C-alpha cells in the first residue's frame, strides 16, 4: 500500500499536473505536493501524486557507502 515508485518528470502540464516516465510507462500525475518541480527531476510517486524529489547527489552517496561497505576487508 505504501509502495511508491521513482519516476522522471517529462513535461509540466499545468494545474499542478505533470507527465512522468516510470520505467517506460508514461502517466499524468499530480505534482501539487512538491515545490518547484522541474522537467528532468526524479520524484517518488504514490497513488498518482509525487511525494518528494529524489536527490541525485544523496543517491550517489548512498551507493558509494554501499560499495565501500561491500569492499571492506573481511577478517578471515
Amino acid at each position: 500500500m505504501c509502495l511508491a515508485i521513482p519516476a522522471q518528470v517529462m513535461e509540466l502540464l499545468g494545474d499542478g499536473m505533470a507527465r512522468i516516465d516510470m520505467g517506460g510507462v508514461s502517466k499524468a500525475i499530480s505534482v501539487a505536493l512538491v515545490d518547484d518541480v522541474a522537467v528532468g527531476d526524479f520524484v517518488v510517486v504514490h497513488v498518482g501524486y509525487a511525494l518528494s524529489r529524489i536527490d541525485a547527489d544523496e543517491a550517489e552517496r548512498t551507493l558509494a557507502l554501499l560499495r565501500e561497505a561491500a569492499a571492506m576487508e573481511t577478517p578471515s
Partner: protein
Amino acid sequence: MKYVDEYRDPELAKGVAARIAAEVDSGSSYRFMEFCGGHTHAISRYGVEDMLPKNVAMIHGPGCPVCVLPVGRIDDAIRLASDPRVTLCTYADLMRVPASRGASLLKARAAGADIRMVYSTLDALRIAEAEPAREVVFLAIGFETTTPPTALAIKQAKAKALRNFSVFCNHVLTPIAMRAILAGEEDEATPLDGLVGPAHVSTVIGARPYEFVANEYGKPVVISGFEPLDVMQSILMLVRQINEGRCAVENQYVRAVTRDGNARAQREMDEVFELQESFEWRGLGMVPHSALRLVEAFAEFDAEKRFGIHTVAAADNPACECGAILRGAKKPTDCRLFGSLCTPETPMGSCMVSSEGSCAAHYAYGRFRDRSRARMERAAS
C-alpha cells in the same frame, strides 16, 4: 529503472552481507522489527533473511494500513456500498480483505454493489464530476503516505463545489502505532533491539517523528528505502549502532527523506484533518490519537456524517493470528490456517491479502525456503 536497479545489485548485496556477518558480535543476538510492509515484501522477495547471520532476526511489524484496518470498518464500507445511491471508490488492495461473515468488497460488488477500483483520488473526483446523480464516496485508507493525496482531493472537491463527493476516512498515523508496539512490547519476553523505519511515510513526515523511539525507548531506528540493498545497509547501520552502544534515529534513505519531511504535504494534511480521540487497529486494539478525521470546515465531505456511519466493532476470524503477527509476537507459520485454509486466493485474514502483508509475503517467497531448509536439515542429521 533508475533509482531501483542499482539498489538490487546481487554482487553488492553479497558484499554488504559479508560486512554484516563480519561486524555482528557472535555472542549476542539482534532482533530488528521492520515496521513497514514494503520492507517485509523486499526481505521475503529478495531472500534478505537468508543472507543474514543466524543471530540477526527480522520481526515483521504492523506497517500496512490494509492489514491494520479492523473488520468493523470494512463492514461499514460494504454497508455504504450497498446503498443504491452510492458509488464506492477504493484502492484495489482493499477489495479482498475479509469482513464479517465471509464478506468482502469484491463479493459485495459481485452481488451488485457499485464499487470501483481507483488508482488515485483524482480518479474518484473525476467519477464524481462525470456522474452528478451518484453519491461518490472515496474509501480513504493509508498512513501519512496516502493522506496528503486525500487532503488535496477534498480541497479540490470544495473548490469545485462538488456536492456528491465524500470521503470515508481511515487514515492512521505511524509514529503512534510504533509507540503502541513499543509500549506493549515491554512485557514481551524477547525485546526488540532496533527498528527499520518507514520509507515513503517518511518522505512526507520526515525522520524527526521517530526520535522518541531513541529518546524514550532507547532503541535505534534507521529510516530505510524499500530496495533490498537499502534494507541491508539499514541493518548494517543498526548493527553498528548497537555494537557502539549508540541509539539514534539515522536515515539511510537520504535520497528521498529529510529530517523534516515534506512541509507542503504536512500543511495540506493539517488543513483538512484533525486527530480522532481513538481508533481501532487490527492487532493493537483501540489506540488513542492514532487516526485522522475531517475538520469542521470540510465536514460536508465527511461520509461518516453524511451517511450516519456508526462503526460496530467486529471480531476477527478466531483462528486467524493476524493480530499477533501485526504486533510482531508471532510468525505466519504459527497460524494453523496458513497455507491450508488461508492462501492469497482465499485469504482468511488481512495479512494474506496484499503482497506486503506478512502472510502473503511468506506464502509467495518464504515457504519454499522453509521447505528446502527443512529438507537440508533432515539430510544433515
